[in-house]
């Protein structure tokens, strides 16, 4: 059982040895506006390695690199749109969790609302029909 006792120590050693290459989570930015933008942006950017997480939460080294880039660009005064453009030029639209609104995403962005409108129209027509039926069944509308 001695082997098992050594393992935690080995693990610590391993983790510490890789510290230099470790994921670097930086302290919050001094400027709260920038920090808020940083958080907002990193939550909207998809990690390409752990593709089911945003770069704010992903433990992958690439995510750390991308976070660093976002901070660098924020300090350099780039706008949110410019930062997103920077990333999509290199990685494509995949990297944004919020798909751009362009002709090939109209169905995506407006489809549900269109469906809602169609549904509402159909319902209103149905209600009108049923309402007339009600009036026929009950003579004039009773006083409420």
């Amino acid at each position, binding site marked *: 059982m001695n082997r098992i006792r050594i393992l935690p120590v080995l693990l610590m050693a391993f983790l510490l040895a890789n510290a230099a290459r470790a994921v670097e989570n930086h302290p919050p930015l001094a400027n709260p506006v920038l920090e808020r933008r940083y958080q907002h942006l990193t939550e909207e950017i998809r990690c390409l390695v752990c593709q089911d997480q945003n770069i704010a939460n992903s433990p992958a080294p690439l995510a750390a*690199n991308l976070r660093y*880039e976002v901070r660098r660009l924020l300090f350099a005064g780039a706008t949110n749109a410019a930062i997103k453009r920077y990333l999509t030029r290199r990685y*494509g639209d995949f990297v944004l969790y919020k798909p751009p609104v362009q002709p090939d995403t109209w169905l995506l962005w407006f489809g549900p609302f269109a469906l809602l409108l169609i549904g509402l129209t159909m319902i209103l027509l149905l209600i009108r029909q049923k309402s007339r039926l009600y009036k026929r069944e009950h003579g004039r509308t009773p006083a409420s």
Partner: protein
Amino acid sequence: MKKKSRYLIGVIPLVLVAGLLVALWAGLSHQPSIIPSPLIGRPAPPLTLPRLAHPDRQVTRLVFKNHVTLLNVWASWCVSCQYEHSTLLWLQRHGVRIIGLDYKDHRIPALAYLKKYGNPYVQVAYDRRGLATINWGVYGTPETFVVGPHGHIRYKYVGPIPQPVARRTILPLVQRLRLDESVS
């Protein structure tokens, strides 16, 4: 509602479901996690890194000038890279010019790796922190770019290159690009 429109309304869901099933079926043969590069057809991004074996010298974009070049992103800690190493050596033997990009690595193990398994690279750029490589849209190792003679990216392969792909796709592409170069 009239009889005909009733049937019509009932058929709409059926059509939608059929469409969905077709799309899902098509999706089965796709690999969702491989991301196509938006850089294809565009000029090679900036690249200014120290060389692996000669820290005082640099690899820059000029390395692509007037040559058809492969840029292969690798690392000594990358297990998948070992699968393609022999393929890279094969490509080198067939006259393909390959520039290596050592990604998030340490010099000593990287040099040892090349010494042990062979060096298919003409030069190796060393990106210790991995930041410069972001310009190329690299998100893992190995990745390989084919850069044309005018410095434009023509092709990208994500993952270890299998021998058939090297033989049937990459080598012919390189040869075709060389022909274009010599013609123009």
